[in-house]
């Protein structure tokens, strides 16, 4: 075994082990996190980082064969569709009225107000600007 083979072997070990660690971390986060939005965060860790590292490690194990081509196709496809699906789920949840915990303070006021109330709002905002 030449030195280059050793380097590729060790790199693929590191990539596969790191990828499995990311997958486990994402799964535990999916189970343990308290909120839907934080669970989205945990799932996307497993979806992008773990998937990419595992596919990279398997590619290095496959060598220059058809297996590597298939793995690259799977990797590109999952890299595109994973965040897209996560975004679709999060967007559907947001449209249906979900909000993160404590997000009521940042919600826009529903009433669109006349000019006088806008002036009052500007006055309320101005001292903060002076401090900053």
């Amino acid at each position, binding site marked *: 075994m030449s030195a280059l083979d050793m380097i590729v072997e060790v790199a693929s070990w590191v990539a596969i*082990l790191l990828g499995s660690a990311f997958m486990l971390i994402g*799964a535990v986060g999916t189970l343990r996190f308290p909120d839907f939005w934080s669970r989205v965060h945990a*799932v996307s860790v497993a979806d992008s980082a773990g998937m990419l590292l595992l596919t990279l490690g398997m590619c290095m*194990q496959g060598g220059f064969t058809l297996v590597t081509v298939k793995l690259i196709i799977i990797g590109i496809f999952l890299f595109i569709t994973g965040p897209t699906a*996560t975004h679709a789920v*999060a967007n559907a949840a947001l449209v*249906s009225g979900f909000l993160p915990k404590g997000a009521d303070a940042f919600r826009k006021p529903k009433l669109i107000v006349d000019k006088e109330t806008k002036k009052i709002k500007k006055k309320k905002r101005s001292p903060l600007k002076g401090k900053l």
Partner: protein
Amino acid sequence: MFAVAAIALFVGMIIVLIRLYAGPTLYDRVLAGNAFGTYTVLFIGILGFLTGRPDFLDIALLYALINFVGTIAILKYFRYRAIGDTSPTPRGTPTANGRLKDQGAKS
């Protein structure tokens, strides 16, 4: 090394399935289902390398395709209550529970 990755992926799949069973809302379940699909694709690939026959990758690719389309189809179904022929406005608007309140039952 492949055995370690396979065990880690298997444990991850079981944990994600627990979340899919216990998820309090619909969107938790859809998210867990999508994640379970990704885990399964990688598990199939790792299992092919583990047994020395990496020929299962076609199945993994097919699973990835079906998983994405299925997630989008589930989301579309629960938003419009139909998959193919949808009305332009959503008929049932989901409430904060994630359950659907059926408003357009008459039409």
